[in-house]
């Protein structure tokens, strides 16, 4: 019925003590990716301070929260992704890659790589929502996907 999944200490730490779990009221942007069918859904909330930003990319991510339905790796990748982008600029957050998420977690089992992709896409989806709400164009940001398979196709 099940197989052993070996997680790194860092993954277990983020799973057992996830950072930034929760919701933000009136967020600057919200992104949700994944689907219940495959067993992973992530939702990321952003609170962006763009009061002194000259360009859209300069807005500062003042706060970030997440909620995740999924396996240990899905929780850990969401947690570390929020930790990485918190306090960063929009431009910096946009550069977050699934590879960076994996490295920050000390690696992921091969069958769990898609969780890191999901975390990257959830951040992008939240940024896209922010850009749409604001009516701005953030350079390098592509329209949000609902699931990672859409990107792969």
């Amino acid at each position, binding site marked *: *019925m099940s197989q052993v999944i070996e997680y790194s200490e860092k993954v277990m730490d983020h799973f057992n003590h996830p950072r930034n779990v929760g919701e933000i009221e009136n967020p600057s942007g919200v992104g949700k990716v994944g689907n219940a069918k*495959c067993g992973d859904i992530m939702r990321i909330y952003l609170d962006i301070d763009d009061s002194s930003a000259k360009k859209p990319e300069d807005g500062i991510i003042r706060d970030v929260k997440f*909620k995740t339905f*999924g396996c240990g790796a*899905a929780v850990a990748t969401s947690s570390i992704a929020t930790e990485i982008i918190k306090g960063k600029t929009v431009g910096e957050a946009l550069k977050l890659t699934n590879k960076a998420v994996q490295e920050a977690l000390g690696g992921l089992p091969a069958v769990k790589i898609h969780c890191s992709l999901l975390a990257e896409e959830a951040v992008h989806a939240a940024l896209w929502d922010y850009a749409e709400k604001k009516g701005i164009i953030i350079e390098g940001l592509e329209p949000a996907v609902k699931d990672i398979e859409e990107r792969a196709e």
Partner: protein
Amino acid sequence: MSDLVYMDNAATTKVAPEVYEAIKPYFEEYYGNASSVYRFAGEARKVVDEARETVAEFLGAKANEIYFTGGGSESDNWALKGIAHALKNKGNHIITTKIEHHAILHTCEYLERQGFEITYLDVDEYGRVIPSELEKNIRPDTILISIMFANNEIGTIEPIKEIGAIAHKHGVLFHTDAVQAYGHIRIDVDELNIDLLSASGHKFNGPKGIGILYIRNSVKIGPFIHGGAQERSRRAGTHNTPGIVGFGAATKLANERLEARHAHEIELRDYLVSRVITEIPYTKYNGHPTERLSNNANFSFRFIEGESLLIMLDGENVCASSGSACTSGSLDPSHVLLAIGLPHEIAHGSLRLTLSEYNTREEVDFVIDKLKTIVERLRSMSPLYEDFVKAGN
């Protein structure tokens, strides 16, 4: 209470101390090859025969109908491939179900690639085969019906006697994968119309790496492992004397204690189920309410995912199992839970707890308390639960 709370007895069981004691001399003292001529090997030969007698008696079979194998998966492979091969001139159609163990399903897929046609029967919402559906699917070229005795995930017991009767009415052989049932339910192969039956030692407090295939004497089947005269030249390989002794000893123990184990497990299981479904909201109890293994409880907790649940239980030293996709190595959750009609997202949140005579009430209370906290914590992190609450529920 011991440090480890083991509630995954459908995965494997502890070797009973009585069984372990019975096995020991066949590692240390009587290590002779049961096929050798000298007197020193006589003891090994004698105990292999005795174990075979014990098993035969337990099943209402003859000793020469019991074949020792390397385990349940081998027995399933032998039954299916052996019958398919032996009867291929008679027909190429086999009937099984959608909820079988992969030892059956993957063997069937292999046979499909060899040109056999397989019908995978649906089951009802409790996981039971509908006998009339089985009968409708029998064709003139049907050579074998293989339906599990009891399901490993949800514990549902199939209407074996009826299935066997239908098979025999149509002159079709009936095999049952009884890996979860043997040693837990009393089985009489004649009364239940069974022609072939697979069982595995480690599922009922015996050792791993030993199983049996019961083959009715009238059944025509070739050898599965070639290379020696063991097991009436049908299953070559030096006899696994300690394993066989262990299988026999575990059978004897099961025969003596079956009703007592049953009563203990049912008491604990029913207590567990009633507390979980009343104290944890949005929980579904999967499987049949009464026609199920005495030690099996299977739940789906909505809005959460099974692997996370298992890791958190593991953090509390509780061993359990789930049918979520993340624990199966694929994107789809358990084929059994899908077959009983659960939507994917509910199947992902499943938890299987399988008890034994060694579990205590104190352990059950401990697991329920931990479960309540863990489910609540995972729900508080779940976007599905958030949506559900915001939708005004």
